[in-house]
């Protein structure tokens, strides 16, 4: 739990023993992680290790059922909050596959979000300027604001739009779910610069979820966590990412297999008697 000194220094997200199931299948098997404002944590892991599940569980997607553990933001129970309450408390998720919202313009969407997060509608004149400047920093065409949210956006445009929201909403904790996937080098640089601007404010803790180390050349993490089998199996500094780049995840093979399991009969087993999930 956050003590007063941590509170003064900024927000803290604490994840303890988190287990999460999707359709009765356990995906997260016990995650412990603490993220403080100003820190950048990278979560790396192979496909299917549950990285995105962690992101969605923190944000509160209804498809993910928390079966155990706690998530708190400055001591407040995040899991007890509705999705929009979590966002207003300061949790932000940049999605891997942002959703299209037909008929809702980017500018309307952004202003609605800012109004909700800030607790009052930003003054229109100031807001137009703020939005325009933020878009300029991400090298987005002003006409973008009049398009419908994520409708017909290229992969790069979707990710810029996510980071635009990050910059405008200034959350306490930002979870970036594979923001680097599908980006060319130029887009990756622009998006990374956006994330770094938010980091430099020192007010946001960043959880960067990625499959590749490429983005870590632009956003240097303070901590790297290796995620296998629904939990963190190794931790280190930025140098751990370099090691993963060289050796991959093979050394963690098997690390995610939980103890126990159904014991099979000894001796010959009839074909079909043993099924694997």
């Amino acid at each position, binding site marked *: 739990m956050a003590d007063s000194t941590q509170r003064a220094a900024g927000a803290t997200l604490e994840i303890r023993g988190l287990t999460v199931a999707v359709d009765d299948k356990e995906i997260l098997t016990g995650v412990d992680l603490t993220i403080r404002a100003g820190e950048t944590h990278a979560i790396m892991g192979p496909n299917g290790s549950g990285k995105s599940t962690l992101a969605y569980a923190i944000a*509160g997607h209804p498809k993910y059922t928390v079966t155990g553990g706690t998530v708190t933001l400055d001591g407040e129970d995040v899991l007890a909050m509705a*999705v929009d309450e979590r*966002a207003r408390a300061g949790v932000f998720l940049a999605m891997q596959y942002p*959703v299209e*919202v037909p008929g809702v313009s980017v500018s309307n969407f952004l202003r609605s979000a800012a109004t909700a997060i800030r607790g009052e509608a930003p003054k229109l004149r100031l807001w137009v300027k703020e939005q325009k400047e933020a878009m300029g920093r991400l090298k987005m065409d002003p006409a973008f604001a009049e398009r419908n*949210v994520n409708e017909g956006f290229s992969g790069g445009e979707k990710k810029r739009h996510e980071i635009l929201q990050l910059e405008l909403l200034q959350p306490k904790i930002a979870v970036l779910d594979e923001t680097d996937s599908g980006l060319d080098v130029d887009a990756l640089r622009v998006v990374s610069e956006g994330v770094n601007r938010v980091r430099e404010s020192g007010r946001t803790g960043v959880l960067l979820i990625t499959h590749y180390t490429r983005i870590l050349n632009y956003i240097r993490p303070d901590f790297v966590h290796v995620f296998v089998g629904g939990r963190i199996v190794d931790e280190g500094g930025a140098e751990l990412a370099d090691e993963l780049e060289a050796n991959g995840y093979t050394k963690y093979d098997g690390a995610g297999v939980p103890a126990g399991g159904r014991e099979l009969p000894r001796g010959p087993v009839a074909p079909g008697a043993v099924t694997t999930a």
Partner: protein
Amino acid sequence: MASGPAPEPAVGVETDSGAQTAMGAALATERAALKETGGITDGAVAVGVTPSTPRRPAGGSPADVRPERVRSTDPDVFGAPTGREEEWRFTPLDRLRVLLDGAPSDAHLSVDSELPEGVELVEVPSDSLDVPAPVDRLSALALQRAGSALVVRVPKALEVEAPVVLRLTGTGLDQVVWGHVVVDVAEQARATVVLEHSGSAHYAANVSVLVGDGAALQLVQVQGWADDAVHGAHVASRLGRDARLVSTAVTLGGDLVRLNETVEFTGTGGEVELRGVSFADGGQHLEARLLVDHSVPDCRSNVLYKSALHGDEAHTVWVGDVLIRAAATGTDTYELNRNLLLSPEARADSVPNLEIETGEIAGAGHASATGRFDDEQLFYLQSRGIPAEVARRMVVRGFFADVVEDLGVRELEERLMATIEAELEGAFA
């Protein structure tokens, strides 16, 4: 296509069908045969429309064979609806009974108008008018009982920028109200006409829309009734040569609203856009039945109707009939219906029909899709701090936006959107 609460509705199912010209000849023969056997009452004009999509019979009746569509000014030609007829099978007749009983009444809606310079508003006896004939018992009753008509006249070649606005307000349910409104846009004229309905009424009416040669009319009808209103209307449009009509129906209020919208062309080059948005909440029955009758060459029609439904027993019906007669070569037509179910108890029926009697057309097609509210959209908006009810409102507003925000009259678009917004705010509060 129909979708309802049980069994699992055809959610997210989309059908598209293009021209099916093969059936045309057979239908023409069928109609000729009916005529010979006296299936059509004297003095009535029959328009045969047979479904191009399979449907279930209603209550085990032989309703899967669509009867001839009869047009007459005589209510008795139609007989009293039983609910088994194709055109009445979706309508809760008990709630419409008060109008179908046909009690004479001289009650009126109160009328308030905004008339730009040069536009006339007059009252004339109904029998002095040459307007398209009623399509069902209710519209025939309304024509007979109303006796006179309120006529908005835009004289020849007059072009008016400011909208003509007629506000029709119901003042109570003690007496039924029979109404007739005529919008007469003379040749080469250009106008925007807004008909706004509000208040409480049991109201049956004909709206006759006459668009002269080379004229253009933007017609907007808003059904912003109180919760207890019952409204049945036949909106009958007749387009001259090279005439253009954009007709938008916005139906939000009322216990039951049933609009029958027909379009006929009297000259080549006519163009019609029929648009509609409706938002049905708990207990409301909102029905739109369209017939676009292409009988002359080189006309175009485009239909876009959208409904959103929210709450117990919310019900919308859209039946879109398009007929391309043998003479209507070069016709280009498309119709699209989209329904958004915001709660599991709501029900949307969607029945597109396309009958084509000539192969020499520019294009013909229709599509219909009914889907549930997209939880991923809701999650996305909520994850940005936007409360669920605001998010839901944004999504529905967005769903309607392409119908409403394309009218080309900015002020009108904003006003309609604000009206829709207020309705949504009430429904999701």
